[in-house]
């Protein structure tokens, strides 16, 4: 669970009815509609129609908002269109239709040179296979975006050195990418994407190429960095558990369409359909459910009860409840008591949310 920063309500990036169609004449389907073709079912019909006319639908009617300071995760299996969507956000892939509003400005309307300015100063991106320049050493790789901006060698190296400290690569400045481990290479990738101090930070499966132990470690470090930097983030992954660990909110994609958007816990408690449910089944509920989710207001509160914050996960509660039959009080951020929880409540909640066939 992300801790610390609370994302603000202010929208940083808004992706509205974005479509990406591949084929001979992708434009023909969107005459002046800006991608807004009506409600969800109308969009689905259009997508099917497009597929039937020998075009490929990589992204269909994708809409979501990313708030300032929020980690927004797009999760989907390979081929679901998640990588296309994140590339549409920076117009590395040109969307066929839709709007991409950054601070209210539609990126699809800006000129090529303005777009380059946006990329130079406001966006950073991390790639699955790192995308490092093989001919540059670590320091110059990190300084590369600054070089592109025409910043002098001395200044950009100075800046790169600062960031090297941030990602813990001190001492490897002169190494070349081929001489680094995967984890170290991705640190370089992260450092490079942060060199221009972007407001928007795109991460495309940044840890998928790493082995599990390193992946876990990198996730922790990513969260630590985010607490420090408070960027607005779009994070792509195919790993549902990774999404749960880091997401403030997440979207699940399938066949180019967004299936569901919400907080991880919303998805687990109220999966929109069987597709989402298939993912949530594998998730240990005690990791996801919080005390606030199951606080029982009708239980009597007694003064001798301890109290815990509402966002405490059930997993951390279990040892306490094992020893305290009376249960525990749950308090929200404003100090209001939401109710109490007993061991029985937890067992009940876990039983209802258990995978099919395992109970219920």
């Amino acid at each position: 669970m992300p801790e610390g920063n609370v994302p603000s309500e202010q929208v940083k990036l808004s992706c509205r009815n974005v479509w990406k169609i591949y084929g001979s004449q992708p434009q023909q389907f969107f005459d002046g509609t800006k991608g807004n073709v009506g409600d969800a079912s109308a969009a689905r019909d259009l997508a099917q129609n497009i597929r039937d006319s020998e075009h490929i639908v990589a992204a269909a009617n994708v809409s979501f908002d990313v708030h300032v300071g929020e980690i927004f995760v797009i999760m989907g299996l390979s081929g679901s269109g998640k990588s296309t969507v994140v590339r549409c956000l920076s117009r590395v892939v040109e969307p066929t239709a839709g709007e991409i509003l950054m601070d209210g400005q539609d990126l699809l309307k800006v000129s090529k040179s303005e777009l380059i300015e946006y990329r130079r100063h406001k966006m950073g991106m991390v790639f699955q296979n790192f995308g490092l320049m093989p001919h540059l050493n670590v320091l110059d790789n990190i300084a590369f975006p600054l070089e592109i901006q025409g910043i002098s060698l001395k200044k950009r190296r100075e800046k790169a050195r600062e960031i090297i400290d941030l990602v813990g690569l001190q001492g490897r400045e002169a190494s070349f990418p081929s001489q680094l481990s995967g984890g170290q290479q991705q640190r370089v990738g992260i450092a490079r994407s942060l060199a221009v101090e972007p407001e928007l930070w795109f991460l495309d499966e940044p840890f998928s190429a790493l082995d599990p132990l390193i992946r876990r470690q990198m996730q922790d470090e990513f969260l630590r960095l985010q607490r420090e930097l408070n960027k607005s983030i779009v994070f792509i992954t195919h790993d549902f558990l990774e999404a749960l660990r880091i997401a403030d909110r997440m979207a699940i994609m399938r066949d180019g369409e967004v299936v569901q958007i919400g907080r991880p816990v919303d998805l687990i408690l109220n999966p929109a359909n069987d597709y989402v449910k298939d993912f949530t089944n594998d998730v240990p509920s005690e990791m996801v459910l919080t005390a606030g989710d199951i606080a029982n207001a009708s239980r009597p509160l007694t003064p001798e009860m301890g109290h815990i914050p509402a966002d405490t996960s059930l997993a951390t509660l279990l040892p306490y409840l094992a020893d305290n039959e009376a249960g525990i009080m749950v308090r929200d951020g404003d100090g209001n008591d939401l109710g109490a929880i007993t061991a029985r409540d937890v067992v009940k909640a876990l039983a209802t949310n258990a995978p099919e066939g395992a109970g219920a």
Partner: protein
Amino acid sequence: MTDTTKMQPMIWFALAGLSIALFLASGSLPALNDFPDAWVFSPTDFMNSLMGGFVSVFGPAFKAMGWLLEWPVRWSQALLEFLPWSVTTAVFVFLGLIGSGWKLGLFAGLSMIYMALIGYWDESMNSLAIVLISVPMAVATGFIFGVLGFYSNRARKIIVPILDLLQTIPAFAYLLPILILFGFGTTVGLVASILYAFPPMVRNTILGLRAVPEEIIEAGIMSGATPTQLFWKVRLPAAKKQMLLGLNQTTMAALSMVIIAAVIGGTNDIGWEVLNTMRKAQFGESLLAGFVIALIAMSLDRITHAFATKPKEIVRTGPNYWVIAVLVIAVLAALSTVFPFLRQWPEALLWNPAPTMNAALEWVVINGREWIEGIKNAAFFFVMLPIKIGLNKAVSPFTWGFELTPTLTLGYVGLVAAGMLWAAVKRRFTLAAIIMLWGVVSYIGLTEMPWIALFAIFVYAAYVTAGRNLAIGTAIGMAFLIIAGVWPESVLSIYLCGVAVLISFSLGTLIGIWASENNTVSSIVRPIMDTLQTMPLFVILIPFVMVFKIGEFTALLAIIAYAIVPAIRYTEHGLRNLPEHVIEAADTIGCTRRQLLFKVKLPLALPAIMLGLNQTIIYGIGMLVITALVGTNGLGQRIYIGLGNGDFGVGMTAGIGMAVIAMVADRMTQAISQRKQEQFGLVQQHI
């Protein structure tokens, strides 16, 4: 596909039957066997008048261009002649040292000293001077076309076929139009070597730029790179390694063409020296000069290759050799103004072992005469002649010691029939049909085969291996050869090259298998192959001409020596680079080493081995043309004659003929390899 597969044996049988029928019927109607002269429509006059017209209009422009191009060559020749030998040697030593290490430095240095020692310094420098000018020009040309081909699909569709053509037209054939357009002089060598050397640079540029991972490009875009920045700061540096490999290939091609260009004469360079001495049967001198070429080739190859593959250093360890190099060279240059022996290699130190070598050679040839003749005759009478003119004519009391009586012929038919029966019993009907065809061709002889039958066989073979398009292409190409009146020469070329390829491929595959299973063999074979492959073509001729004199057998050996290299190399590489998990699985199942080789490794390495066959054929054809120098008949000789007489039509017709054969053989073998690769799910990057 199944339908045509079922039809296959039938059609092969039919083709064999057709061959017999036409052969028998040709007694009364010779046109069935040999394409009648009256039907020949030779394009040579047309080509000559076309070229004449072209020259009369554009000639002055080309002459002017030639005049312009001559200057840089003169300057570079003047420079290399002016530089003291000690300075040039030092330059090479340091290039080797910085590129790879002291071993290469030493090698390059000793190579240079050898040139001075045997008194071929000036000739060597003259050749090197042309290379020095042609390489940058070829690289620039190649780079421009490569970038064009990378960015524009339409441009690539035009460029790639032209490259294919330039690389399949035999080196000799290049010289002719250039000679006519530019006139005699060093320019011919320069232009030819640029034309011959730029294609690999184009290919490697396209390949390198294409191979840059998408994410690296995206990282560049996300950093806010403009398209120009993206090219110069992202794509180009990331593709640099591949492009340096292109530089290496370009250098080698340029050198090889500069050497070949010596056949037009009039230049005082090392290629001319080899050729001239070889013509005068001064084999000692020829070998010494050939050795110079080999050393230049190896030095240039190793040095450019070393710079191409040089790993990046984190921190420079040791002294800065560039600085030391400049210092040492400056000191040597200064000293050589005081000490003449550093500028000009002293006469007293010249060494000429040629007379001794000639004497030794003579001794060997005289004393080993029986052996030499024995080997030559055995190969000629029992292998080459039967394939060339068929058992029908090859078996005579003079060659085989007996007459081909009707009884023997019947026995031969029985033997072939038995082979077919055996195959038929095993239900391998295509094999049975092929055995029959083989039997027929061996009896009649390749050059005596009725032209209609041969035409049909080639076209059908193209259809079976690569499909309809190639069959049509083959038909058109063969029709050109027939109508242009160079069919007999073409068949002679196919025969000689075919025999050589057959031997090279069988022998090469065996050696390749051995080398893949045995590290000692591999480490012995590898440097020999490296040397053979970097050797400019006609240097390879020298040792064979020395012993076996001129003739087809010498040519055969030379072609084999050159064409065996890819067969060995691809086989070993294919066998050694199979997916680890497959080998492990086979081991776990309990394969013996033998089973592993025959049941797992060889079938899986088949695509690579077939690619080896492809290269063997291409190498074979490349060498075939050069062997015209030692008196082979066929298309190569026609090219040579055209070159000698300045007859554009004759040379070009033969050159195109050679290219047709090369392209058909190339596409057929490529198709087989590709099909296997797709079957195995392997992907190969190819431009």
